């Protein structure tokens, strides 16, 4: 079991986390942040295993992970 927290203001919607998540937890959401980016959300948070692959990949250090 894991948990991710995404800093929505820092997210730029590159989707690196989305494609890196082995559990397909993440997805681009439908809200834009103040910079106009459609930020990523944990669409299926229950699947998260806390492997931090997403966080490793995030260029913006926008993801923190708990396990």
């Amino acid at each position, binding site marked *: 079991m894991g948990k991710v927290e995404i800093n929505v203001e820092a997210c*730029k919607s590159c989707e690196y986390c989305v494609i890196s998540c082995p559990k397909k937890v993440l997805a681009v959401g439908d809200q*834009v942040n*103040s*910079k*106009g*980016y459609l930020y990523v959300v944990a669409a299926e948070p229950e699947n998260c295993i806390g492997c931090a692959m997403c966080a490793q990949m995030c260029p913006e250090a926008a993801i923190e992970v708990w396990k």
Partner: protein
Amino acid sequence: MERNLMIAGFGGQGVMTMGKLLSQATCDATDLNVTFFPSYGAAMRGGTSNCYVVISDESIGAPVSDMVDDLVVMNGPSLQKFIGDLKAGGTLFINSSIVKDKIERDDISVVSAPVTEMAIDMGNPRALNIIMLGVYIGYTKAVDEAVILKGIEHKFEKKQKLIPPNIEAFNKGLEIGKSQVK
């Protein structure tokens, strides 16, 4: 008479294209003086992007101003950043699809158009800038609408099939602009 305009928005909203189309068309089809000045630098790396257009029947001084006659804002951050640069009595053009903030100033006119939605509705989401140009021209008559129509034809000379939808977009904007003239 000199009229200056600032257009601001996100990088992807066609802010530069809108300014360039207006100024290029004015150069091509009129005898007016016109300048286009892109604020460069921050532009590429996301964030807001903006440009200035000045149209005048006399020689033009600074192609930029911190006291513009007209301000077009395509997104929220631009509004916050530039509202102070609009002169008293000036006109603010708002992309009301995105810009939801309350306008604090009461010494200006505000013209709103939900250009993002309209563009999506038209099936041409990138045309929001052309719609806004229509709004602007419709409201201000800064140049004759024919000037812009020619400009659109010229711009899409090599992609003829893009002309009709863009003209349509422009006309949609024109209507809104005209309708809001008090």
